């Protein structure tokens, strides 16, 4: 097994950075700078772009706030909360796999296959089996579909060290096409002419959290985030995963069964992505159209990194992005811009994040290969002298 030759890339940012300063104030400051600055800088750069396009950035960002949080008499935030459910589940899935320093970029195919199965079998299954059982079956089916779609990349990576970026992307394209074939073929609603599945009855969908319009998929997502955080931080599986992510060779010396760990982490990641599809389509949509692809995963990636691959820290970022994307629809329509402008913002966040990561690493670099005593001596004149 040539597993250590696979890592054709440097580890993700969070794995690489070392917590050099231990004082709480410094750490909070550090986290704020490294997590919030990229977002603020991207919003600023976005404002400049909007100006260059002849749009008013103030009213654009106001519309985002209105459409995503305060609009409709403080009702719009519920739309953002509904959007959070699939995003959080995908983020949890990506956190697991990125911690292992493996790139699962096949989320679109995994998501759409789950969505196609859920909407395709949903109407008949909910009619024949009692609703809770049907829901459980559908959710598990979507999760399983997502997991199955990672098997080829996982096995190729585990056995031959084939670059998983390529294989997951290819499987993603195949999955999207396969989902469309299913939607336009066996799952097509015979009553309509446009390619679309049958619509789930409203009472056959996921129930809402009492007092809100938000379906319980959000609670499932929060639960999944908690479980992922627990597993990654407090179990031996999580520890082995992190060791493999940090250094596969060390993990093998440590006795970790790398191929098996690679495959299981892929399966978990795919399962969570499939779960996201189930929640979104059983809770919000109730049907899927041919060619429909929300591509949530593309925009989730930056926030997973901003959260430094910490499942809990992902929550505020995803909340922020949900507001941005729900409100961004309104803002883009009002400004007569394509909604793809949000992709620019997300790309900018990623770019600024890497730059700030670099600056932070530069600041820490005094310590990387010096013994602790010498490091302190070097640092002391620059900062205040501590004994």
């Amino acid at each position, binding site marked *: 097994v040539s597993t250590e*030759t696979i890592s*054709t*890339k*440097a580890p*993700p*940012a969070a794995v690489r950075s070392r917590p050099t300063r231990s004082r709480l104030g410094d750490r909070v400051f550090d986290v704020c700078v490294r997590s919030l600055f990229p977002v603020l800088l991207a919003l600023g750069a976005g404002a400049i*772009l909007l100006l260059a*396009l002849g749009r008013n950035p103030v009213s654009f960002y106001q519309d985002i706030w209105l459409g995503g949080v305060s609009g409709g008499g403080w009702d719009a935030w519920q739309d953002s909360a509904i959007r959070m459910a699939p995003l959080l589940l995908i983020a949890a899935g990506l956190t697991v796999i990125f911690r292992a320093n493996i*790139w699962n970029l096949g989320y679109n195919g995994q998501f759409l296959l789950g969505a196609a199965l859920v909407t395709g079998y949903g109407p008949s299954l909910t009619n024949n089996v009692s609703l809770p059982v049907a829901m459980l079956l559908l959710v598990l089916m979507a999760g399983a579909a997502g997991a199955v779609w990672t098997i*080829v990349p996982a096995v*190729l990576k585990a*056995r*031959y060290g*084939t*670059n998983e*970026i*390529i*294989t997951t*992307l*290819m*499987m993603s*394209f*195949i999955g999207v*096409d*396969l989902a*469309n*074939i299913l939607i*336009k073929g066996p799952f097509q609603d015979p009553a309509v002419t446009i390619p679309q599945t049958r619509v789930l009855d409203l009472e056959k969908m996921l129930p809402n959290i009492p007092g809100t319009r938000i379906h319980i998929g959000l609670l499932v997502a929060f639960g999944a985030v908690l479980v992922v955080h627990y597993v990654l931080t407090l179990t031996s599986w999580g520890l082995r995963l992190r060791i493999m992510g940090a250094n596969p060779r060390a993990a093998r010396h440590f006795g970790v069964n790398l191929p098996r760990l690679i495959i299981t982490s892929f399966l978990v990641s795919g399962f969570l992505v499939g779960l996201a599809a189930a929640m979104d389509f059983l809770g919000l949509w109730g049907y899927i159209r041919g060619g429909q692809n929300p591509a949530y995963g*593309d*925009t989730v*990636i*930056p926030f997973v*990194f901003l959260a430094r691959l910490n499942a809990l820290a992902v929550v505020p970022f995803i909340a922020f992005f949900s507001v941005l994307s729900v409100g961004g629809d309104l803002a883009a329509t009002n400004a*007569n*811009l*394509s909604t*793809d*402008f*949000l*992709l*620019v*913002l*997300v*790309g*900018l966040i*990623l*770019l600024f*994040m*890497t*730059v700030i*990561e*670099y600056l932070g690493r530069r600041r820490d670099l005094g310590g990387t290969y010096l013994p602790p005593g010498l490091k302190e001596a070097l640092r002391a004149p620059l900062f205040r002298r501590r004994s």
Partner: protein
Amino acid sequence: MILASQVWTQVFWTSVIAGGLLAGVPLMFTALGETISERAGVLNIGLEGMMLLGAYLGFLGAHYTGSVWVGFLTGIAGGMIGSVFMIVLCVWLGLDQIVVGIAITLASEGITSVLQQAQFGSTYPRLGAAPTVEIPGLHRIPVLGSSLFDQPLIVYLAFAFVGLLAWLFRRTNIGLNLRAAGEKPEALDAAGVSVVATRSWATLSTGALAGLGGAYLSVVAAGIFTPFITQGQGFIAIVIAMLGRGRPLWVLLGSFLFGITLSLSDSLQLAGINISTDVVHMLPFAAIIIALILFARRSYLPPALALPYVRGAR
């Protein structure tokens, strides 16, 4: 009756070859670009974004000047703009190549879509067909002639470029330096050649070639720029480059195989066979996956690929 079926097959095969060429040339330019940067140890996931920038700027250039060649030049410039981010952030500062690549792709998708909608959202201007050059004599060969030897000049130049690149890789110091930068950057540094400069030039040429591929898509193949026009071709190009293992001739072969699968749906429709576009669209990707499963053992990547080079670091 027999005559009719002969015409049918002739039209069919002509359209398959011509279509494969039309779809294969942009793939080939882009995959050749990726070959250069992979040899030098830079994994360029932002290829898709650079293609899109090239496609958009190439369309602008060709639209406003009316010249295909200006379109190609602006397309090259577009791809280079995308690669400059990659050079500064990944080669000079040593940041994560995959994160930056994803960022470049996302930002380019967004910006080209926004600009296209703002400028041409209501008019959708089209370019005229690109002028073709018939090669005297050869273009009269029944099936091959009209498809292979009656093409825009850029296609012939593309073939010449494959030869040039193969010679460059095999016979020149530039090729040796490129390979050293990907295989053992320390050795290149010790030999007195700057790894950073080598990788920078490699990445810049990758951007230029991806931009040219994108410009070919919008200027010659489609005659129009639409958002997300590349449809994942940048990623296919990465795979072709990986399977080609740094050999330009293999890249040429792979590009046309995938070009044919990409264009097969049109040819089949022309032949009266109706097949779902989703199935046909899936074919090249399925072919890649099968190829990867069969030849997984043999796919080879330079050891220093995607690793930033920091002088003196272990």
